[in-house]
């Protein structure tokens, strides 16, 4: 009996503590993180949270910081690289201590930005200078500035595709499939690599939303009960292409044991012909080609195989957005770092990415797109918050791999079911969630 009493007591204590512990963090002041008028105005030690563990470990970030200190001598920049960035930062955001500068984790709902981050200025002011600023605009104030953006498309090995006899970027999904079949017939290369096991490469397929209809507002249009997978819808076109590639046996035999790191070498050596990825990957694949002792210029980039009025379109999507912690006591210094890092560090050029600064030129990695007259569209993010709410409520995950993994499984017969039924089910879930999530 005595033991039971003790346990009950402990549980009671625990319950009391629990209720007491649920106060939540302090309220944010809403004070704007202004750019310093004079470099001397910025001072203090700031901590920058980043997901680029590689750049922190090899000292690249410290070199940026040293360069930054030439202009802002009174600011000391410290980096904290997190391997599981999303997971760790999300949990830390329940406290006030999540660095001074951080990348906005995807888990934070857009409408909650003012509770966590300091505003950086008005939307009207920043939109002229920076691309992608509407992604973090809440109540006409901007809360984050993108590190850089990426265009989406297919990386391919030019030598392999030439050998297969395809020189023009395919204009329709049918032509694309025919090209992959030619690769299978005429070369030893695997036509397409899904990266199924590492899963995240499958999420990039969603970034083609907009490229199909050449509509920058395509993502916004998903907000509501719109059956995104209906015939003729963008997601129908995009996901059908993936389905047909796998169903046609044009992808790897055993997708469940793929390996992203190895896939870079495979495409560089011409063992794999094509992968669907963002333009950020081009630099990495070219590095892999240098390592594999093949020609880095063989790595090409082509747009999604759809033409609207004779032209290809490519949607530009933003990468992580840098924000200032609303609880930071060195907001000016933090803002100085963001400004400098975005505009002057040369980071986005080095990564071969689309610069956030409107005035900066397109990177050399997108030369294929520029040469082929691909129209760049900047993705509108006006309704991203609503779309994400529906997406989460439906448990589909447009930017998560699960539903596409199931798509691939259906296509290769590992799971029972037809594509049409699957699309119908997705539509149903989406529309139902749109009905409840709005309330």
């Amino acid at each position, binding site marked *: 009996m005595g033991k039971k009493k003790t346990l009950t007591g402990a549980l009671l204590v625990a319950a009391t503590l629990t209720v007491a512990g649920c106060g939540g963090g302090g309220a944010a002041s809403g004070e704007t993180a202004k750019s310093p008028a004079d470099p001397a105005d910025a001072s203090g030690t700031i901590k920058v949270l980043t997901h680029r563990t590689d750049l922190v470990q090899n000292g690249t970030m410290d070199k940026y910081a040293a360069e930054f200190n030439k202009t802002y001598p009174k600011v000391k920049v410290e980096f904290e690289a997190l391997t599981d960035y999303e997971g760790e930062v999300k949990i830390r955001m329940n406290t006030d201590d999540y660095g001074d500068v951080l990348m906005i984790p995807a888990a934070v709902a857009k409408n909650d930005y003012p509770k966590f981050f300091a505003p950086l200025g008005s939307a009207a002011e920043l939109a002229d200078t920076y691309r992608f600023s509407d992604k973090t605009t809440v109540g006409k104030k901007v809360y984050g500035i993108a590190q850089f953006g990426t265009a989406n498309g297919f990386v391919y090995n030019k030598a392999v595709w030439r050998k297969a006899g395809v020189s023009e970027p395919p204009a329709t999904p049918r032509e694309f499939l025919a090209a992959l079949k030619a690769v299978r017939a005429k070369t030893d290369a695997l036509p397409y690599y899904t990266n199924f096991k590492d899963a995240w490469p499958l999420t990039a397929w969603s970034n083609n939303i907009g490229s199909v209809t050449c509509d920058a507002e395509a993502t916004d249009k998903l907000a509501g009960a719109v059956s995104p997978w209906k015939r003729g819808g963008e997601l129908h076109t995009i996901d059908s292409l993936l389905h047909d590639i796998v169903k046609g046996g044009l992808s790897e*035999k055993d997708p469940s044991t793929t390996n992203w790191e190895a896939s870079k070498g495979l495409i560089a050596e011409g063992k794999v012909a094509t992968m669907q990825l963002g333009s950020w990957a081009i630099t990495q694949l070219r590095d892999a080609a240098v390592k594999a002792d093949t020609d880095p210029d063989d790595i090409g980039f082509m747009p999604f195989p759809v033409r609207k009025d004779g032209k290809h379109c490519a949607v530009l999507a933003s990468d992580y957005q840098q924000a200032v912690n609303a609880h930071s006591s060195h907001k000016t210094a933090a803002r100085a770092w963001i400004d400098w890092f975005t505009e002057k560090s040369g980071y986005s050029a080095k990564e071969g990415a689309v610069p956030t600064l409107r005035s900066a030129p397109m990177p050399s990695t997108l030369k294929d797109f520029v040469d082929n007259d691909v129209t760049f569209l900047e993705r509108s993010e006006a309704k991203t918050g609503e779309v994400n709410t529906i997406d989460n409520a439906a*448990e589909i995950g447009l930017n998560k791999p699960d539903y596409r993994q199931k798509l691939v499984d259906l296509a290769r017969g590992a799971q029972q079911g037809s594509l049409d039924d699957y699309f119908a089910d997705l539509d149903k879930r989406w529309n139902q969630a749109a009905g409840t999530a709005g309330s």
Partner: protein
Amino acid sequence: MTETTETPPVAPAKVPRAAVPPRTGRGGRLPRGLTPWLFLAVPLALLITFTYVPVGNMIFYSFTDWDGVSPDRRFTGVDNYEQIFTRPELFRVFFVSFYYLAASAVQIAIALYFATVLSFDLRFRNLFKGILFFPYLINGVAIGFVFLYFFQDGGTLDSVLSWFGAGSGHAWLGDPASANTSLAGVSVWRFTGLNFVLFLGAIQSIPAELYEAAQLDGATRRQQFRHIIAPSIRPVISLSVILAISGSLAVFEIPYIMTGGATGTTTFVIQTVKLAFQFNKTGLASAAAVVLLLIILLITWIQRRLVPDEKVDLV
């Protein structure tokens, strides 16, 4: 640093007190009942901080619609629980547990067999014990990675099979049935060692005279197992079964690392983790975790009812 220099002057003041009989349980100023609590304070504090408070929090979250980050959360009553019990797809993943349950039966049988064999005098006995226990010592994440290569197309398993002319080119993790069987196989490989050690410990506590007497009476090894070993390690077997069932319901790391729950290998815990961290439904995920906890408690309770804890009396 300054504090240490200040201590000496204070210390003498305590000397007269020290002359008083030392503070033992009987003569000190501490109430008699408090002493055990002093010893318990640290473990209890740890237990409460790291077990009961999180569990309490989890139960609290399960009644809200919290997304895991937002400072706001709304009470939604039993809505989350209602969802769990009204959405069949959330429960369907429990079928995957049957693969692991079947695997645990195999695992217990293997462990019991080897524990019995190795409890007798045998050449290289300790070496075999080491080999059997070794997999349990390896980190689960490492095991996941190792077996990923093992099951790869043209990986270790395929090459070994091809030596025997059975190179199937089968994608082991490629379809739900073989993927779940493969994953359950990994789990057997990993946890047999633990069961084995538990059984071996129990078997070795059986007095040697019993075997001697049995041998004099002409009992075979099989009869010795049937009438001496099995009854005397019954509590340990029953414990293993409880662990096996609760473990099968709560499988997580091996499938999460190896397949991420793809191709029909999602278990209840993986699904919960995905609800919480992919779809930001911390409230619903907490409710799922509470339900799993209750199911495991219930099963354990039923099992204790069916197989009561009886005292083993051999002599």
